[in-house]
């Protein structure tokens, strides 16, 4: 698709709103879990990892206790590995054990649900958590699997050909979520 046929990206969540969305997610997680007990936050690379760290920071402020944070790469568990050129694998770094923890998967955008389905398999190879929860900054709909998030920063209506892009200070130098139509 030629570049001039794409809409300019529109900011749908700015830095302030992104901060409030994360605070809301932290409260949702704590309410559902009745506190921070047994929580283990695992961010899915790339942007799920800094989001998980920020959520852990917010939970620490609210509850005055630290919760373990790690990263869980799901590349090798994807169902479309064979359909793409070799993908670069990210870091998996799980503090302690997932056994009997309440694992909270953290990702930036929930879309088809396939990433999260792969994450379930990845968690299963690490042990047996008491429960697995899901926290996402943006839920853009269009699920292809029966998966729902437990904590959501913002739900947005999107068309399938729109592109939702999360940028974070840690990885991209700025906090914002944009939406654009057509090519990248």
């Amino acid at each position, binding site marked *: 698709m030629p570049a001039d046929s794409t809409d300019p990206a529109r900011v749908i969540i700015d830095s302030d709103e992104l901060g409030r969305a994360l605070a809301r997610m932290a409260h949702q997680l704590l309410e559902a879990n009745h506190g921070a007990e047994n929580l283990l936050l695992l961010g899915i690379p790339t942007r799920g990892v800094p989001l998980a760290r920020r959520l852990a920071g917010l939970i620490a402020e609210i509850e005055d206790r630290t919760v373990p944070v790690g990263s869980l*790469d799901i*590349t*090798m*568990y994807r169902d479309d*590995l*064979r*359909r*793409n*050129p*070799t*993908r*670069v*694998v990210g*870091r*998996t*770094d799980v503090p302690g054990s997932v056994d009997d923890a309440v694992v909270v998967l953290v990702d930036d955008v929930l879309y088809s649900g396939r990433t999260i389905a792969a994450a379930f*398999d990845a968690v299963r*190879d*690490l*042990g047996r958590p008491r429960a697995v929860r899901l926290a996402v900054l943006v839920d853009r709909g269009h699920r292809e699997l029966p998966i729902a998030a437990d904590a959501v920063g913002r739900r947005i209506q999107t068309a399938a050909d729109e592109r939702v892009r999360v940028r974070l200070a840690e990885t991209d130098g700025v906090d914002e979520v944009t939406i654009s139509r057509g090519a990248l």
Partner: protein
Amino acid sequence: MKHLLSAADLTLDEVNGILDLAEEMHQVQTRPVKKLPALRGRTVVNMFFEDSTRTRSSFEIAGKWLSADTINVSGKGSSTSKGESLRDTMLTLDAMGVDAFVIRHSSSGAVAQAAGWVKAHVVNAGDGQHEHPTQALLDAYAMRRHFREHDAEGWAGKRIAIVGDLLHSRVVRSNVLLHRTLGSEVVLVAPPTLLPTGVETWGCEVTSDFDAVLGECDIVMMLRVQRERMAGGFFPTPREYADGYGLTLERLERLKDDAAICHPGPMNRGVEISSEAADAANSLVLEQVAAGVAVRMSVLYHLLGGSDEGGQA
């Protein structure tokens, strides 16, 4: 990447990609469930026409931990002992639809030739006196970890001595090629009888005086003196070899403080390496073995992890 035949096939980015992923794969070794699903449904054939314990078993474990189906074909007990040619054996297996061959062969160049016959991916697990690229990669992996632990990351300016039977070693050729890509300095040390013809064209410093370079190296890699060479007139006696080219206790004490020792194994203790050096705190020998599985997992993933069109996402 379609094949891994030579260490020279790899770009710097590819080497770094393989070593970085090997770090991740290394973690899998410590998990209760040592299994990743990435190569589910792929079949890897290990064809070893020469004896090997660590290379063959580490390739087999690497394939299994990535969920590939692995089978082993050895020279003995296969149709090659009935006179079938390497080409026919490979075409037979290729026709069965296998995805990759991991080949060790006693003839230099045999693996590269084999890669031209089959549709599957081919990995060179050692061909004659030519190359052993995954060994060079795991050596580099162990060295890189050592440098990191000593806050001295980066290959520029690192001096790596490779000492011993350069004439018959495939490990040295792959290491020289790999370090040319990485940008580190290699100094080759051997008695004049064990220097390959044309070694001056390899672009490395070459010397027969181990003691002269010993104190300035960051890594000392001792090569195995192959038993069959000991009677081959290349040096008078194992004892004299050890005096001139062995990493003795006396030489061990003259290494730089943060220098490390490598050996591709299996070791002849008392010949090219003393027991004190083999078991020293700065010996990477066991790290190299542990790295073998992780690095080979990484290589198999890079070859087989994506669609067959290849390329890197």
